[in-house]
């Protein structure tokens, strides 16, 4: 159980853009164990999507420079050839994207697109057999009347059904890893709950390791085992789910947790906010990238902290903040809950 299924080390992705060179991902490392759900949390510009897409080689282009390693059961992916990667995509690592309406080809039937995925990897499976498998998959993700839905076009399905169909397509070949990039963001809250239930069930039944990318901590709390918090291309905190929510070590995490609305608590006078905005990746501040927005910044913050376990408790709980564990415990308590204190 403890050998990592997917091991990423020092992932770095640079793009050449009109505005200059841009570092979208800066030294990201993590392990994914079989059956584990890892959540990568971040906002726009955090690099979470680029990280996921780079693992599958989807960001390869003449404008991109990719460094580091990502290995699936020891097989190196980042340096692999297109032909080798193609065998991994869909078959061993599958990906589900945010908006199922634009992520499916609008002029082809849903069933055809799933059949295409199946036959791309299993040439010996005939059309009829592939279609039967497709209907089975649609059924297993909870789509009613799958034998009729299989001939529908994407726009003929509701948002929730579409996302289930995408999940069905991703899992048709029984991959070991599922990467889900904001799978519920475009959906209504009741549908979101259903999709999360589905993902949880699939994770359990198939022992499916999942990387869930999201900006929504509520979603993360429902489904993740471990959490990576990313900011401006770097991991600023990582740890087990409970560690992140109940013992967060980085001010950005405090800010994210603080700005959450809780239906089961009294509402605060003013919604806690993080001042400023995520930085432009073309013009990052030196040292700790969160420094301009952090009310607790002090002299040392001009030096970039390494990602380390500073609390001395769990080795897997690491962060990039120079404050001492005592200071962190003190400062994150704002008005009886965890939060980021307003600017002094």
């Amino acid at each position, binding site marked *: 159980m403890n050998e990592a299924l997917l091991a990423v080390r020092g992932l770095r992705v640079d793009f050449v853009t009109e505005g200059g060179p841009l570092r979208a991902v800066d030294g990201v490392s993590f392990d994914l164990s079989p059956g584990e759900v890892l959540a990568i949390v971040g906002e726009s510009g955090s690099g979470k999507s680029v990280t996921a897409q780079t693992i599958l080689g989807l960001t390869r282009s003449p404008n991109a420079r990719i460094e580091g390693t990502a290995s699936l059961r020891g097989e190196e992916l980042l340096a692999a050839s297109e032909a080798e990667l193609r065998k991994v995509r869909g078959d061993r690592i599958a990906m589900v994207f945010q908006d199922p309406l634009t992520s499916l080809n609008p002029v082809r039937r849903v069933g055809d697109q799933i059949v295409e995925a199946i036959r791309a990897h299993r040439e010996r499976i005939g059309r009829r057999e592939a279609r039967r498998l497709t209907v089975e998959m649609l059924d297993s993700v909870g789509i009613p009347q799958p034998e009729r839905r299989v001939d529908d076009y994407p726009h003929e399905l509701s948002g929730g059904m579409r996302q289930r169909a995408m999940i069905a397509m991703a899992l048709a070949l029984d991959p070991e890893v599922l990467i889900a990039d904001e799978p519920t963001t475009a959906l*209504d809250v*009741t549908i979101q709950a259903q999709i999360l239930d589905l993902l949880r069930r699939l994770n359990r039944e198939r022992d499916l390791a999942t990387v869930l990318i999201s900006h929504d901590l509520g979603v993360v709390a429902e489904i993740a085992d471990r959490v990576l918090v990313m900011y401006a291309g770097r991991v600023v905190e990582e740890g087990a789910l409970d560690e992140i*929510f109940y013992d967060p070590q980085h001010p950005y995490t405090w800010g*994210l947790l603080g*700005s959450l609305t809780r239906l*089961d608590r009294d509402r605060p006078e003013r*919604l806690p906010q993080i001042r400023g*905005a995520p930085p432009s990746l073309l013009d990052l501040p030196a040292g700790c990238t969160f420094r301009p927005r952090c009310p607790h910044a002090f002299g040392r913050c001009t030096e970039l902290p390494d990602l380390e376990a500073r609390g001395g408790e769990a080795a897997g709980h690491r962060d990039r903040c120079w404050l001492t564990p005592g200071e962190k415990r003190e400062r994150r308590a704002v008005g009886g809950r965890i939060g980021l204190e307003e600017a002094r």
Partner: protein
Amino acid sequence: MSAERPSAHDEPLLQVSGLVKHFAVKRGLLIDREVDRVRAVDGVDLRVAPGETLGLVGESGCGKSTLCRTVLQLLRPTAGSVRFEGREIAGLSRREMRPLRPQMQMIFQDPYASLNPRKRVGQIVGDPLRIQRSASGAELRRRARELLERVGLSSADVDRFPHEFSGGQRQRIGIARALAPQPRLIVADEPVSALDVSIRAQIVNLLDDLQEEFGLTYVFVAHDIGIVRHVADRIAVMHEGRIVEEGPADRVCERPSHPYTRSLLAAVPIPDPRESRARRRTGDVRS
């Protein structure tokens, strides 16, 4: 949100009764005949007191956007009444509505689509004043600068273009534009849904401050019931063209009476792992 809660006995700023907006589905060989109707808004009653924030919650397709546009007379109501400051405005012609428009403004969801990319920010913010001829030239520029500062941008931004700003900043520009004609009512249609989580709170707090400073009345539409609960005094829950529940925000969220409201609340993920696990253990109904 505001310090003194508006009393229910105040004359409502906005009163909507039996509002209906249907869209006809037409079919026919030579001449289009109506074969069906899409009942986007199917008999809605609402009232908003001056200085109050009414939260409107519902999922996609429930008709909340159509409701907003129909109330503001951007769409012609099929039936029903809309009284603004006691005056009936449902069914008024465009000319008759013109003098009223400055008093009711709208903030839109998509900060990328709701600003004309070819216009400078100063122009965008000043347009409402220019159209109403309430200011021009140097005075216009001054007002635009003032508004930008008020929403947290700098007056130097007046000459820049929308694409030079981030999503949160663009939304501030949209707010400045809505404030320009000094409205009494602002309808905010999903104003923070498209923004980063850490920016949402900033915009919500800004709207709060502006409400106090200018005595604004808000109708705040969103599908995120958590945000709505924070900003609203009263909440109306919309489902398939009708309001299924309405009441003080805390009451609706803590003791919902309608099954739809209950299912909506039950579906909201709890950002607290222990609570979330506990809830799942006791097996609540989700589907």
